[in-house]
């Protein structure tokens, strides 16, 4: 029983740290808890903490609280935990298999290869071109965007708050492009815009909308606040450079 409680808690924690919606976290906890043989399962998830209470058939109640300190964007983990929990409740996966899979997911560190960041830079290129930049500006934005991703993921490995990461990324992108625009014929605004777009808090924005929709006011509002503060931080970073550069 102890071990099953740990499994349910771990699944919920993985979902929360990777930015899943609240209803998904609570639904997964309930599904896994019932499949594990508990008679009543209560889960309460917020973006910064997870509370579960599992009632065993013999009358014992197991309650656990888990504080969520760090979150990062990793949608593949959400998808995997989702299918593990479904397989577990179907009975097509044993407790040992679920344990091994969840342990593997929780140990899996984010693979930060240079290739990943270069592909991420293509997003910056696309954005500059969506807003009317030409190929050349797109490529400059893409390279700067890739460097921003390298910088932000490096900062992310140290205890640097998200807002400060975003501001630093904004300063870096604006400074690089401001410098380049002195020697190259590029539109500085369009190029900077593309390069900073790689830091868009897309996961926070979308889950905030979906949380509010399903009546999760607490996490909906706190995620909207996260998205807003990151956006303002990026803008502040860019604004600092533009002011110093005399715009």
């Amino acid at each position, binding site marked *: 029983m102890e071990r099953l409680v740990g499994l349910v808690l771990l699944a919920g924690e993985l979902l929360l740290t990777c930015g899943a919606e609240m209803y998904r976290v609570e639904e997964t906890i309930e599904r896994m808890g019932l499949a594990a043989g508990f008679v009543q399962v209560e889960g309460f998830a917020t973006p910064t903490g997870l509370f579960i209470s599992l009632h065993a058939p013999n009358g014992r109640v197991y309650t656990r609280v888990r504080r969520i300190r760090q979150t990062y*964007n990793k949608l593949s983990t959400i998808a995997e935990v989702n299918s593990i929990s479904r397989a577990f409740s179907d009975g097509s996966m044993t407790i040992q298999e679920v344990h091994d899979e969840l342990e593997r997911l929780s140990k899996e560190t984010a693979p930060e290869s240079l290739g990943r960041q270069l592909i991420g830079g293509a*997003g910056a290129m696309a954005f500059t071109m969506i807003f009317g930049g030409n190929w050349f500006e797109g490529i400059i934005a893409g390279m700067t965007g890739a460097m921003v991703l390298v910088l932000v993921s490096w900062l992310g490995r140290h205890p640097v708050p998200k807002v400060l990461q975003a501001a630093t990324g904004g300063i870096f992108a604006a400074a690089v492009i401001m410098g380049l625009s002195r020697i190259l014929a590029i539109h500085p605004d369009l190029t900077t815009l593309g390069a900073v777009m790689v830091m868009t808090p897309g996961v926070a924005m979308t889950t905030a909308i979906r949380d509010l929709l399903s009546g999760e006011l607490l996490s909906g509002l706190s995620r909207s606040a996260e998205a807003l503060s990151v956006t303002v931080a990026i803008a502040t970073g860019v604004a600092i450079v533009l002011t110093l550069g005399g715009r």
Partner: protein
Amino acid sequence: MLVQALIGFIGATAFAYIYRVPTRQLPYAGIVGSLGHVIFLLTRDEWGEVGGVFLAATMVAFFSEVLARRRRQPVLVFLIPAVIPLVPGAKAYLTMLSFLQDDYTGALVSFISTVLLAGAVAAGIIIASSLFRIYSRAKHVRR
């Protein structure tokens, strides 16, 4: 238009990559994103920017929900990257720039249009997703 569709695809796929969408779902996320961008471009002139973004976001959310059920994935996997090309980044940037240049009237105008565009994206997602929620609830009850 073909170039724009391609750019939308590249953009959504790249963002899917940044958010670590499972590798096998990457092209689907890209296609939905590209579709949203093209719908926005096609309807922008007739419906205005806000209307175009609203329609595009509704369609993107709709196809994300369909794909999520077909491919047994969480909706977020498709929805997050596909919505990204519709985010009013340019308007937000313009707001910041106008504030810097002491053009408060211009800043207010672009701020309001940023809020409207972001609201249109949110409204589109809410409408498509709640229709799906009602539908699946109804199916659940019937069983």
